[in-house]
């Protein structure tokens, strides 16, 4: 069934048991919404030099958007900014692939749990849900950088 390709176990697991949920101290905060469905996220980033010390978030939304924020937290916290940007790029590429991209080993190594979202890319209406937290993270990071909070 096609539906299971979207709602992978790993996604449902992140949805039911989210990582790093809740707002904590940060260098910059952004609030992003998905106007078509009303999903919302408030996200903060905390940098320790070039290292992502924390990504904290709060919001409401569907399983895909919530699981995606959880995966983002798990994947990016502790990483160097340059590495995190590579992960973000890879995730964006996967989500924009319209289901045509079969993640290879190299991609899986970069994206870890996030490869589970490959199935979501087949559903155009849901791609924005998966990208909500990632766009918020990118925005928050740009804000933190412009305010000179990172090295």
């Amino acid at each position, binding site marked *: 069934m*096609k539906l299971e390709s979207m709602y992978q176990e790993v996604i449902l697991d992140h949805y039911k048991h989210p990582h790093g949920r809740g707002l904590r101290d940060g260098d910059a905060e952004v609030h992003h919404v998905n106007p078509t469905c*009303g*999903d*919302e996220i408030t996200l903060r980033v905390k940098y320790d030099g070039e290292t992502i010390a924390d990504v904290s978030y709060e919001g409401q939304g*569907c*399983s895909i958007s919530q699981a995606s924020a959880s995966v983002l937290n798990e994947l990016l916290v502790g990483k160097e900014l340059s590495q995190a940007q590579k992960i973000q790029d890879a995730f964006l590429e996967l989500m924009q692939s319209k289901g045509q991209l079969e993640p290879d080993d190299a991609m899986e190594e970069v994206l870890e749990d996030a490869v589970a979202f490959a199935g979501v890319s087949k559903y155009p209406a849901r791609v924005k849900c998966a990208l909500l937290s990632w766009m918020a993270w990118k925005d928050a990071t740009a804000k933190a950088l412009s305010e000179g909070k990172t090295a």
Partner: protein
Amino acid sequence: MTDARQGLTGLLDTEAIRKDFPILDRTVHDGKKIVYLDSAATSQKPRQVLDALNEYYERHNANVHRGVYTIAEEATALYEGARDKVAAFINAPSRDEVIFTKNASESLNLVANMLGWADEPYRVDRETEIVTTEMEHHSNIVPWQLLSQRTGAKLKWFGITDDGRLDLSNIDEIITEKTKIVSFTLVSNILGTVNPVEQIIRRAQQVGALVCIDASQAAPHMVLDVQALQADFVAFTGHKMVGPTGIGVLWGRQELLEDLPPFLGGGEMIETVSMHSSTYAPAPHKFEAGTPPIAQAVGLGAAVDYLSAIGMEKIHQHEKAITEYAVKRLLEVPDLRIIGPATAEDRGATISFTLGDIHPHDVGQVLDEMGIAVRVGHHCARPVCLRYGIPATTRASFYLYSTPAEVDALVDGLEHVRNFFG
């Protein structure tokens, strides 16, 4: 058949009606028959409307009100004939009171702009007030916000009660001597509520305010009589009433249409033009600048014929029966909360609900896999979601082709959704 289905009266012969709608035979996701429960967003189109569109383009296509040749005159007669049909459908005193627009949003924006540019006594300015409600579709909020921002007029609104009705307890404070226009929906697109028109109009008339009614969710589903309503403007759209997209209607009282200024300028809306100034054609043409949506108007005419042949009162009774049944069955689903009136009294065939903590997006996605099409989100009525502290709802809406079996399919589908995310 479930027990609850017994005793349903007033249903239309949906078996016959559904044969007119080719799309209802479609299957999705490996042969699942489509269960279309999103008619509040847009209705499906019967063969009769599709044929009218085709026939227009294949045999009569020409621009209107211009050519002297045969097909141009045919096109004009068809376009103006559609206006006659719509005028009769809403019991307008005059066909010249029916303005064709692109959709209901354009109709409402047109009213807001007529008033924004009007002279006294209609003029909206910083000394005056505009009234709407918290229950509106964004298309009946944003045009008034824009008018308010541009003129300095104060925007006020009625709130909503816990059970999904307009809170009119402070009507005398909301509608005052300063009020120039009261604009509200006849039937809510998210809650399904049918609003008490009379009480609002009576108060508006007391203070000399104009009344604009958004009938987008009413015109497809019930007898719409603009004379009985006693409003000054009534807006609705064609695509929700088995017509094509791209055609809307604004009905306005004749003397207002004569007095109020045009909004869009261009061809068709003029009487004479010089480089210094122009004079305008009488209504409705004054408000129809440029080549109009001709084929779409013809399609709407065919839609009106289709609905009238079945009978709006019969359609209303059918939907009432379906809604009663749907409310009853949905309330059997554990954790389901109806957002809006929890009974079928004074409500249209639109039911919004939440299902436990499961996000409507996820509900809609799983239902889609079963072939069931519902709308999820805030339904262009975000203030309503804010009012009830929810991000979104799942909305099922019914029409003349909807069946009790489709209600059952929805209820079964929701059971599956609960298991999937349980």
